[in-house]
C-alpha cells in the first residue's frame, strides 16, 4: 500500500482537474460522486498505509517520486515521507475530508457554484495531503501555500458579497505575514544545514547543543508561520472572519485540517523545538494566551459560527500549549479529537443554519431540539466532547495537555483550566441558546424548520461516534489504559523524548482529572442556571453593555487596533513614496531619457523616405559593399 502513496494526493488532484474543467457540463450527481469518490479512494489507500505501517518495524519510509528541483548545490527530490505522524494526519484529512464532502453534497445542493465548490475542496485536499506527505520543508511549503490559496478561494466562495471577499483577502494577507516567517525559517534551515529534507535536517540537528541561537531563530521563524496558519495571537483575527465561507469549508479547513498545519509543522520539527527552550516557552505562552483570550471573546459572541471559530482559536491555543510544554503526542492527540468534535460542531451548526434558512444569530434560535433531533443529539455529544466531559474524546486529550502543563509550569496549568472552564461555559451557552427554550425566530423560519437530508446527517452521526470514542486511543496509564497513540507516535518523537519525562504520580493525575471534571461540571451548572433556569438572553444590538462585556463583545478592539497602528501608517508611507520618490525622481529620470531620444531622433528621421524599394536597393548595395570588403 505504501507504494501507492503517490495516488493519495493524485486522486483528489484528478478529481479537481475533472470537476474544474468539465464541472459545468457534468450533472451535480456526477460531480458529487467524483468529488467524494476521489477522497474516499484516498482514504482507503491511507487506511491501507496506516495498517501496513503499524505492522512494519521500520516506521519511516521515504518514497521518491521524481527529481524536482536541481540547481547548483540544491537538490530537492519530490518525495513523500510516510511515518506515524503523517499517516495519522492522512487518515484525519481524508477521513474527515470525505465525511465533509458527503455533507457538502447535501449542504451545497442548491448552490449554483456546486461544481466549483467541489473542485476547490478537492484541490484543498490535494494540497493538504501534499503538506503532510512531503519529505522536506519545500513540499510542505507548497502544500502550505496551496491550502492558503484554497482557503482564500473558499472563504470568498460567494464572491458577489464584498464583505466575504474582504474576509478572504484578510485571511490571505494575514497568512502571508506568517508565511514570510515560515519561508525565512526554511531559508535559514537551508543555510544552516545545507538541506531542507527532514531526514538530513533532523539528523544534523540532533547533534547540536540545546539552546543554540540559530536553532532558536529557526524555530521562532517557523513558529511565526504556524501563528499565521493556526491563528495564534496576534495573527488570529482572520479565522473568525473566515467564517464567511460555506459551513463545510469552516468545518474542513478552518477547524479540522488546515489550521492544524501549524501544529503538524511544529510537531514535525519537534527536535528543533526541543533543542531551543526559548522557542518552547514562547510557543507555550502564546498558546495559553491565545486559548484564554479567544475563550473570553467566545463568551460574548452571538453568531453561532463565530463562537465556534473563537472556540477553534482557543483549542488551537491548547494544542500549542501542549507543544510548548513538550507534549507533542498530546498536541497531535488533541488535533485528532478536535478534528472530530469541531468538525461535528461546525457541521451541526451548518445543519442548524440550513434549517434556519441562513440565520446564524443564536438570539434568533432556541428550542430547535424538537425539530432537529439528530442534529441536536450529535451537537450535544460534540459539546460534551469539547467541554472535556469524561469519557468523551475531549476529556482525554485535554487532560493529557493539562497534565503535561502542570508538570511543566503550574501557572500554565491554572490558565489552561481557566480556559477549559470558559470553554465549557460558552459551548453550553451556545447549546442551550440554540436547542433549549422557545423558538425566537420569525414565523417563516419556524415553518421552514426541518431536519437536514441524509447526506448531511450521516456524516454527523459518524463524526459523533468518532467524537465519543475517539479518545479511547489515548487513555492514560493512570486510568488503566494503554496509550496507543503514544506508542504509535513514539518513533517520531523519539529524539525529543528526553524532555518528556513522566514524573507525575498517578495520584496527582487523578487529582488533576478531578479538578478538570469539577471545573467542567461547575461551569456547566452555571451555564445551565443562567440560560435554562433564568432564561437569560444575550443583549440585543444597541443595548447598554457593561464595560467588560463591551470589551469582550467587541473582541478587545483588536481589529481596530491593527487598522490604526499598522494599516493606516503603511498607507501613508506608501503614499509618500508614490508621490515623491516614484513620481518625481524615478519618472523624472525615465522621462528625461525619453525626451533626449525624441530630440535626437527628430533630427535623424529625415533619412527615412518610406519607399520600401529604396530600402531594399540600399540594402543590396550594402551587401555588395560588405562582400567587397571581405574579398579585397
Amino acid at each position, binding site marked *: 500500500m505504501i*507504494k501507492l502513496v503517490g495516488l493519495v494526493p493524485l486522486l483528489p488532484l484528478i478529481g479537481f482537474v475533472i470537476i474544474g474543467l468539465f464541472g459545468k457540463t457534468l450533472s451535480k450527481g456526477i460531480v458529487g460522486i467524483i468529488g467524494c469518490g476521489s477522497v474516499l479512494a484516498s482514504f482507503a489507500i491511507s487506511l491501507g498505509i496506516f495498517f501496513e505501517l503499524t505492522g512494519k518495524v521500520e516506521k519511516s519510509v521515504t518514497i521518491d517520486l521524481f527529481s524536482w528541483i536541481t540547481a547548483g548545490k540544491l537538490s530537492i527530490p519530490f518525495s513523500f515521507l510516510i511515518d506515524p505522524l503523517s499517516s495519522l494526519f492522512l487518515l484525519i484529512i481524508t477521513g474527515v475530508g470525505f465525511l465533509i464532502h458527503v455533507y457538502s453534497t447535501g449542504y451545497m445542493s442548491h448552490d449554483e457554484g456546486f461544481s466549483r465548490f467541489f473542485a476547490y475542496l478537492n484541490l484543498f485536499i490535494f494540497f493538504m495531503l501534499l503538506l503532510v506527505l512531503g519529505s522536506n520543508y519545500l513540499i510542505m511549503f507548497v502544500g502550505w501555500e496551496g491550502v492558503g490559496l484554497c482557503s482564500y478561494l473558499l472563504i470568498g466562495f460567494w464572491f458577489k458579497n464584498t464583505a466575504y471577499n474582504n474576509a478572504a483577502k484578510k485571511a490571505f494577507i494575514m497568512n502571508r505575514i506568517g508565511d514570510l516567517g515560515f519561508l525565512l525559517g526554511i531559508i535559514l534551515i537551508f543555510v544552516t544545514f545545507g538541506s531542507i529534507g527532514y531526514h538530513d535536517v533532523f539528523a544534523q540537528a540532533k547533534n547540536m547543543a540545546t539552546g543554540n541561537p540559530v536553532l532558536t531563530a529557526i524555530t521562532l521563524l517557523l513558529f511565526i508561520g504556524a501563528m499565521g496558519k493556526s491563528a495564534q495571537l496576534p495573527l488570529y483575527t482572520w479565522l473568525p472572519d473566515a467564517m464567511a465561507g460555506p459551513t463545510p469549508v469552516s468545518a474542513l479547513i478552518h477547524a479540522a485540517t488546515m489550521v492544524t498545519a501549524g501544529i503538524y509543522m511544529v510537531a514535525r520539527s519537534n527536535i528543533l523545538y526541543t533543542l531551543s527552550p526559548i522557542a518552547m516557552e514562547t510557543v507555550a505562552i502564546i498558546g495559553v494566551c491565545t486559548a484564554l483570550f479567544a475563550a473570553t471573546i467566545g463568551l460574548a459572541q452571538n453568531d453561532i459560527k463565530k463562537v465556534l471559530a473563537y472556540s477553534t482559536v482557543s483549542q488551537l491555543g491548547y494544542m500549542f500549549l501542549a507543544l510548548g510544554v513538550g507534549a507533542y503526542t498530546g498536541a497531535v492527540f488533541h488535533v485528532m479529537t478536535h478534528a472530530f468534535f469541531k468538525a461535528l460542531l461546525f457541521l451541526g451548526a451548518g445543519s442548524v443554519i440550513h434549517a434556519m434558512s441562513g440565520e446564524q444569530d443564536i438570539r434568533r434560535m432556541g428550542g430547535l431540539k424538537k425539530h432537529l433531533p439528530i442534529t441536536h443529539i450529535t451537537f450535544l455529544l460534540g459539546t460534551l466532547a469539547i467541554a472535556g466531559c469524561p469519557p468523551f474524546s475531549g476529556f482525554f486529550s485535554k487532560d493529557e495537555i493539562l497534565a503535561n502543563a502542570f508538570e511543566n509550569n503550574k501557572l500554565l496549568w491554572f490558565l489552561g483550566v481557566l480556559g477549559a472552564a470558559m470553554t465549557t461555559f460558552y459551548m453550553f451557552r451556545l447549546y442551550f441558546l440554540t436547542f433549549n427554550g422557545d423558538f425566537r425566530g420569525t414565523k417563516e423560519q419556524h415553518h421552514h424548520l426541518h431536519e437536514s437530508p441524509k447526506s448531511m446527517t450521516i456524516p454527523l452521526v459518524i463524526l459523533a461516534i468518532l467524537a465519543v470514542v475517539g479518545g479511547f486511543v489515548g487513555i492514560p496509564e493512570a486510568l488503566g489504559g494503554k496509550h496507543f497513540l503514544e506508542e504509535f507516535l513514539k518513533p517520531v518523537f523519539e529524539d525529543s523524548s528526553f524532555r518528556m519525562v513522566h514524573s507525575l504520580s498517578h495520584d496527582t493525575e487523578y487529582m488533576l482529572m478531578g479538578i478538570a471534571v469539577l471545573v467542567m461540571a461547575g461551569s456547566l451548572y452555571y451555564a445551565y442556571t443562567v440560560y435554562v433556569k433564568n432564561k437569560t438572553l444575550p443583549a440585543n444590538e444597541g443595548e447598554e453593555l457593561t464595560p467588560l462585556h463591551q470589551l469582550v463583545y467587541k473582541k478587545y478592539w483588536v481589529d481596530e487596533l491593527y487598522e490604526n497602528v499598522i494599516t493606516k501608517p503603511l498607507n501613508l508611507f506608501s503614499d509618500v513614496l508614490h508621490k515623491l520618490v516614484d513620481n518625481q525622481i524615478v519618472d523624472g529620470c525615465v522621462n528625461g531619457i525619453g525626451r533626449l531620444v525624441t530630440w535626437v531622433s527628430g533630427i535623424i528621421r529625415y533619412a527615412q523616405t518610406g519607399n520600401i524599394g529604396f530600402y531594399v536597393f540600399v540594402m543590396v548595395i550594402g551587401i555588395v559593399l560588405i562582400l567587397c570588403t571581405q574579398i579585397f
Partner: protein
Amino acid sequence: MTLGYVIYKLILAVIVFTVTLLIAMYSTYAERKVAGFLQDRLGPNRAGWFGILQPVADAVKLFMKEEMIPSVSNKTLFIIAPGLSLLTACMTGVVIPWGTSLTIFGTSYSLQVTDLNIGILYLFGVVSIGVYGIMIGGWASNNKYSLLGAMRASSQMISYEVAMGISIIALIMTTGTLSVGQIAAQQHGWHWNILVQPLGCLIFIICAFAETNRAPFDLPECEQELVGGYHTEYSSMKMGFYLFAEYINMFVSSAVISTFYFGGYNMPFIGRFVHDGNLLAILGVVFLFAKIFFGIFFFMWVRWTIPRFRYDQLMNLGWKTLIPLSILNLVLTGAWMMRHEIISVFIK
C-alpha cells in the same frame, strides 16, 4: 538494374495504371448502380448485360461531345489543369503494395511498384499537390463559380491535410516505419491497425472524404450553388478527366485506407489453409481488392446518404473538431507508448 528488372517494373506499372483506369471507369457505373439501389431504383441496365457497357457508352459520349474553351480563359492552363488532376491522381498507385511477391522461375517479383522508405510522405506529397489541378482549372476558366469552387477546394484540402497528417503521425508512431510496404506487412493476421488506432482511422477516413472532394465534402463542385464548381466551364473529355480523377482518387483512397488500417493484402486465418506462396500472393491481391471495393462502395454509400455540409460547418469540423481530435489521438498514442514510464513515476 538489369533490363529484366526494368521490364518487370514497367509491366507492373502499366498493369497498375490500367487497372486503376479500369476501376475508375467502372466506378462511374458502380456509382450510378449504387445510387439507384440505395434509392430503390435499378440504375443503368440498358447498355449491355445489366448495363455493363454503360461506361463505354459514357466514354464515347464524352469523346463525341463538342469541345469548348471559353474565349476569356487562360488557354494553356485551362488545358493543362485536368491533365494535372488526372496525373496526380494516378501517381499515388506506385507505392501501394498490391500483394506480397510472386515467385516465377525462381525469381521473386514484388507486387509493389516501388517500396519507398518514405512511402507515406510520398503519398502525402502527391495528395498535397493534387489541389493544383483543381485550383488552376478553376482560375483558368475565368468564371466566378469556377473560382469559388477552386478556392473552396484549396482551403478545404489544406485544412483537412493537417488533421490527416496528424492522424498519420500517430499511425507512424505505432508502426515505427514510413514505408507503406512494411506497414502492410506488419498487419499480418489480426494485427490490423484499426484495432490500434480506431480514432486515427476514423479521422483518416473523414479526411480522405474531404481530400477526394466526395460528398458530404463536395463543396468545390456542388451543383446547386456553384453549378459544378471548378469544372463549370469544362466539357467533353476534359470534363471527363476531372471526373475520372475523382474516381481514381476514390480508388486510391480506398486502397490507402485498406493498406494503412485494414490489413492491406492480409487476411486473418488464410495462412492456415493456403501454404503455397504464389497462391497466397494472388489471394492477397484478391483480398486487397475486396477491401478496396468495399471502400469504394462505402464512399458511394456515404455520398448517397449524407447531405452536404455548409461551408462554415466544413471548416468548423476540420479545424475545431478533427484537428483537436487528431492531436488528442496523437497524445493518447504517445501516452500509451510511454505508459510504463508514466506509471512508474507514481507507483514505485
